């Protein structure tokens, strides 16, 4: 091993927990980040179940008003800062170097530091439960509600500090993934030969690098404000806070979407035994998508009277173009394929179907005249849960079933996987679809009790029942992982006839990712190219016209 490589990858492994916690191997960092994100997902899920228990009846007495505010604040904050975003970064951290034929991530020690900063942020944020007054002003904590007069106490300060640390850690890890893609690609891996997932990861980490510093800035300003500074004064101050927050707050929505889109796309292409259709347009649309999504933040502020609604309506509605291209490419990939409906494929198809509901309802919320009604109502709750839960989380599970064999060397059980999928699809739609109706009828978000209008109690009860079904689905997923790791069904290197370089190494991959020379990198699906060439040779050998 040359000195150059030994400086980026540990020559001698430290055994045990210390080794796991201090490894600079991108696979170990990605796995640690992913496992901890999954734990935070369970925490956020329990908070959601408590909220649904409270809302099972119009005048529920499960939790107090104050606790309810803590629940929705910590549910949103946990899911966004500690699960969906870090899980997206974790998948990029693990998979991108493998997909582009790199031996390591750029700045491995910096990436490890970023992981620990993020984890400290998560722990500080959750420690608010120990002081008895965790964050309780919602995940966007508008000023002046979140100043020290209206929300006194150390718990909200810890929430602010937790967000700063989590954002800083994610920023650092995202920067390392950017560096890896720009500097560590294998010979022959030009930008326009990068796999579909790597492209989705690249636009995500670029948006993270572009928008998270603004979140850190606005949280630092909020912290100073809470310590007695006068930062955000009057109407302009309140609007400035919202502008700065949403300048991060909308791009992060897409950071929480693109890698899961990439995971679903890879699962669909591999399960259809056909390369992803329209690569050039797909890459261009990802660029357009991320550029637009950095410029739509004001649609969160249509009802403030403080932004130029027409401009943000334009950028928000224009998202139809790149989103339409993704769906065109997906359908065109299916047509003519040789489709196997394994669990990863079911989740990927579920991702596209359900995200469509989230995306189409997003066109409604992007229209100011419609948003004047649905903003801050349950319609919006339904909309973003269809994007983040019915969308991204289904994309995440597509990725888990697709890459679990690569990461662990063992396959997940198909039967339990299909049970997991069916339960999750039923539970998700039971929980979130009635929210569209409730929002349309005037139910506002973030209320612990609601009026007894006709049908409202029934719809809320359906939602609560749905959340229990979701819990069962997650339990079957955990059981699946448990069973599959205890009684291993060996996966081998390439169980699905994969298209990309991570399937051209052992499962799990060795410390330096590839112990043998890489196959020739001829396109964004190099292994499929090899397979097609072999088929052509076999046909020519048999003398049949090709």
């Amino acid at each position, binding site marked *: 091993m040359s000195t150059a490589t030994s400086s980026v990858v540990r020559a001698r492994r430290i055994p045990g927990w210390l080794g796991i916690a201090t490894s600079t191997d991108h696979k170990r960092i990605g796995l640690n980040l992913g496992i901890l994100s999954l734990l935070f997902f369970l925490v956020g899920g329990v908070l959601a179940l408590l909220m649904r228990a409270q809302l099972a009846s119009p005048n529920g007495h499960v939790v107090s008003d104050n606790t309810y505010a803590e629940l929705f604040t910590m549910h949103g904050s946990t899911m966004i800062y500690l699960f969906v975003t870090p899980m997206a970064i974790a998948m990029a951290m693990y998979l991108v170097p493998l997909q582009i034929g790199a031996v390591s991530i750029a700045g491995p020690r910096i990436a490890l530091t970023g992981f620990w900063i993020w984890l400290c942020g998560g722990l500080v944020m959750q420690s608010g439960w120990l002081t008895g007054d965790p964050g309780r*002003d919602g995940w966007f904590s508008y000023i002046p509600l979140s100043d020290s007069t209206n929300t006194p106490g150390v718990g909200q300060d810890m929430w602010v500090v937790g967000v700063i640390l989590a954002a800083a850690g994610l920023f650092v890890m995202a920067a390392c993934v950017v560096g890896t893609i720009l500097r560590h690609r294998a010979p022959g891996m030009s930008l326009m030969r990068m796999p579909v997932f790597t492209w989705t990861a690249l636009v995500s980490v670029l948006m993270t690098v572009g928008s998270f510093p603004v979140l850190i800035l606005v949280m630092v300003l909020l912290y100073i404000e809470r310590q007695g500074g006068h930062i955000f004064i009057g109407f302009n101050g309140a609007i400035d806070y919202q502008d700065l927050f949403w300048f991060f707050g909308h791009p992060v929505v897409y950071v929480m979407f693109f890698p899961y889109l990439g995971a679903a796309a890879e699962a669909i292409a591999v399960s259809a035994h056909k390369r992803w259709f329209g690569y050039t347009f797909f890459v261009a649309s990802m660029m357009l998508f991320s550029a637009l999504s950095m410029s739509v933040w004001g649609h969160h502020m249509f009802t403030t009277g403080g932004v130029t609604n027409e401009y943000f309506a334009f950028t928000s509605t224009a998202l139809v173009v790149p989103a339409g291209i993704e769906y065109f490419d997906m359908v065109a990939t299916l047509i003519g394929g040789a489709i196997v409906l394994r669990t990863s494929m079911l989740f990927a198809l579920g991702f596209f179907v359900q995200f469509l509901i989230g995306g189409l309802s997003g066109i409604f919320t992007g229209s100011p005249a419609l948003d*004047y009604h649905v903003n801050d109502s349950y319609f919006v709750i339904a909309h973003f849960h269809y994007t983040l839960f019915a969308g991204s989380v289904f994309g995440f599970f597509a990725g888990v079933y697709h890459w679990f064999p690569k990461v662990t060397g063992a396959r997940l059980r198909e039967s339990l996987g299909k049970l997991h999928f069916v339960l999750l699809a039923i539970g998700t739609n039971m929980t979130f679809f009635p929210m569209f109706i409730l929002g349309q009828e005037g139910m506002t978000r973030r209320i612990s009790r609601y009026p007894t209008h006709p049908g409202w109690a029934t719809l809320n009860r359906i939602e609560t029942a749905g959340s229990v079904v979701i819990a069962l689905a997650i339990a079957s997923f955990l059981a699946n992982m448990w069973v599959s790791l205890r009684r291993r069904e060996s996966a081998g290197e390439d169980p699905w006839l994969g298209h990309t370089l991570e399937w051209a190494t052992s499962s799990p991959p060795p410390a330096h990712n590839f112990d043998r020379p890489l196959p020739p990198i001829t396109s964004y699906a190099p292994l499929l190219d090899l397979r097609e060439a072999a088929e052509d040779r076999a046909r020519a050998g048999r003398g049949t016209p090709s």
Partner: protein
Amino acid sequence: MSRAQGLASALSLLPGLVYTRHVYDHLFDIYAPIGVGVFVVVVLAMGIAVLRYRRRAPPAAARWRENNRLEGVYALLLACMVAFLLYLTYSAEHKVDTVSAQERPSLTIDVISSRWEWTFTYPGYGITARSGEVGHQPLVVPTGEAIRFKLSSIDVIHSFWIPALRFKRQTFPDYTQDVTLAVGSAGLYQGQCAEFCGLRHAEMIFTVRAVSPRQFTAWAAGGGVGPIS
């Protein structure tokens, strides 16, 4: 009602008052069928493709890579769709925000939001009504007239939402925003704070009582204390 008639009836509202509810319903009635239609087409295409190309041997898969001309044309169609939706949205928002602001209101009501109640005062009438944690005095308004609401807050951000009017606007401390609304028909409507404002946010509700202009005048002349007949 056909699309053309719907458009005509929406246009016929132009010379009169802007009813936010009508503007919303008109826009929604165009957006919703498009959304449902797109959903059905995409899911059908996915479903048919999956059923048709299921369980074939991997080498049977087609080898198409891309068709940039086809996708270019498709992207242009999407752009036209965006232009159409924006045209509808801009004309709707123009009515709600600009045209209504130019109307001469027959009544002005100060709406002061605070934790956790609404205070409605009628300048010139000496009437004040409060609703929220403290009690539930209704916001009485006349139907068929432009009403200017001067929205403000005395502590944190709230949001003035009357779902039946399909309209809400955030209220800010030390800042007054004017919105002009009109109520179409008499009745009782729910109103509430839509922006989370702390502990008793759920209790920041009020009732809108819309009555005929004649009834309103009689009620207001009596100082807002008598029964509404």
